[in-house]
């Protein structure tokens, strides 16, 4: 019994080491491939900067005319915008480069090669590459979060900061799962006619605090497309105004959507392996 357990744990450790080595080799190769195109960094920096400036300008319009947004002060709204920028950066770094290739894998049949590797296919498809050009967005977003929090006079404890990080991770997982499920439908529709782009434009709603939206949309962005958990909840956690129920809901939604993406992928693969030729 003990021998079995030891053997099992040894196997497990070897598997973890193999996945970790694979991930390092994936990203090493991705970095090398991206570095072939140096000018991208400059373009990406300009694009992120421009985007952020535009969002700041629109946000400032609301406050200049004294409207405000759903009871959020200008400074607190900056934190939400910062969270959005961080998340958008993560999407550009990891989600977009990986998940957008799934359609291509299905179209040109190279998914077969992925399925014949002794490594989990969802792991491969989700983390095979990364684009360093989204990193400036993450950094700019973090700067905005810190500036907004200081201006808003927030004094987060270490616990608040950790909780914020956790909520941001939950947000990423939710976004990833939705995106992955949409991309996986390409097994049936082959051309997922940029449905993922539609998803991304919906996410733009996360630039502003969720309470700024009319009640119907608020419900939609919480229950159907959980945008609320992506930016508003982490911002609330940092500003120390998050309620326990929202935090718990965010964690629960993250776990459930991750499980859903897993289930959906095995379901899609069952279809692929029985119908493709």
């Amino acid at each position, binding site marked *: 019994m003990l021998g079995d357990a030891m053997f099992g744990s040894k196997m497990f450790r070897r598997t973890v080491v193999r996945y970790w*080595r*694979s991930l390092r*080799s994936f990203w090493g*190769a991705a970095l090398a*491939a991206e570095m*072939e195109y140096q000018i991208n960094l400059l373009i990406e920096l300009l694009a992120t900067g421009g985007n952020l400036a535009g969002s700041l300008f629109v946000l400032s319009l609301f406050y200049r005319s004294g409207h405000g947004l759903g009871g959020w002060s200008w400074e607190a709204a900056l934190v939400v915008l910062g969270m959005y920028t961080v998340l958008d950066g993560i999407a550009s770094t990891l989600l977009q480069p990986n998940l957008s290739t799934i359609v291509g894998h299905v179209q040109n049949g190279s998914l077969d090669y992925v399925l014949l590797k002794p490594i989990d296919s969802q792991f491969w498809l989700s983390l095979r590459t990364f684009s360093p050009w989204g990193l400036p967005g993450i950094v700019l977003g973090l700067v905005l979060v810190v500036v907004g929090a200081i201006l808003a006079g927030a004094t987060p404890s270490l616990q608040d900061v950790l909780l914020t990080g956790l909520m941001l991770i939950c947000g990423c997982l939710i976004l990833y799962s939705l995106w992955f499920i949409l991309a996986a439908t390409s097994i049936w529709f082959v051309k997922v006619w940029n449905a993922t782009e539609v998803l991304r434009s919906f996410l733009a709603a996360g630039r502003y605090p969720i309470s700024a939206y009319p009640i119907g949309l608020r419900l939609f962005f919480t229950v159907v497309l959980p945008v609320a958990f992506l930016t508003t909840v982490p911002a609330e956690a940092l500003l120390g105004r998050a309620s326990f129920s929202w935090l718990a809901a965010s964690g629960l939604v993250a776990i459930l959507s991750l499980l859903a993406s897993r289930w959906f992928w095995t379901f899609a693969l069952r279809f692929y*392996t*029985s119908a493709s030729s």
Partner: protein
Amino acid sequence: MAIVDVRGLSKTFRVADKQPGLGGTLRHFVQRRHRLVPAVQDINISIEAGEIVGFLGPNGAGKTTTLKMLTGLIHPSAGSVRVAGHEPFRRQADFLRQITLVMGQKQQLIWDLPPLDSLRVHAAVYGIDTAESKRRITELADMLELDEELTRPVRKLSLGQRMKAELMAALLHQPAVLFLDEPTLGLDVNAQVRVRSFLADYNRRTGATVLLTSHYMGDITALCERVLLIHQGRLFYDGSLEGLTDRLAPCRQVRLELRHALPAQMFESYGSLESQNGNEVRLLIERDQLTRQVGRLLADFDVCDLEVNDPPVEEIIGQLFRQRDAT
């Protein structure tokens, strides 16, 4: 025990049926009709470790579908498959480590990077440590005559070099069973010859089993002692390449060049006359009659030149498929 064991294997696809034209399109959109298409029907194959087997058949015969069932990419509709002691469609890691699939028209190397970067990724995925992967890369590069190509971006390699690099990536984990789908597709004659001799060499050195499909008969005649012929999803020949020619082409062609032209009926007792063009006569003579009839021909006529040929394998097989289609 056979390393590849296939019993009663069948695969049926459900495909949508669409009539041409706008009416057909609308009907197709509103009420889709499906029909079942049998791609592979009741195939039995048994391959021993170390064999190189050629898999022949026209386009759409079911070759790729069979290869995909053997590698576990698609589920069989009926029958059983065992490869290297595993059921392929469960795609267990231990099974995947023992096989490889090379598809001539699909590539897996990273386009923007040199092959060595892709090889590093493969080594990590298959859990091969750095020292061992270096050793294997050196060995394979040596066999494939690749050197500085390994540090040049894949997009800058010629088709032949790229195929060799693809083979390297596919063989880094030292699989016991190789499934090769058109590995020489599009390559020039020199590159084809090099890939072929590499495969023969690899098989000799490692004892790996190879199942290969190809449109180039040269690949098959150079590499395979045994061939499988599949047509319309059914296997109808499994045996040696010579056996195939014996069975399908019982006659050999004899070309005579005579000093003087003679009437055709004078040759009737020697074999069946294929053509006559002035002094040149072509006869088809059954194999077991060949020496006797050639002896008679030389004795009875004033022969300047004589040539005995086997019809080309492509022609025999093509003829066979046409016969099958007709019946």
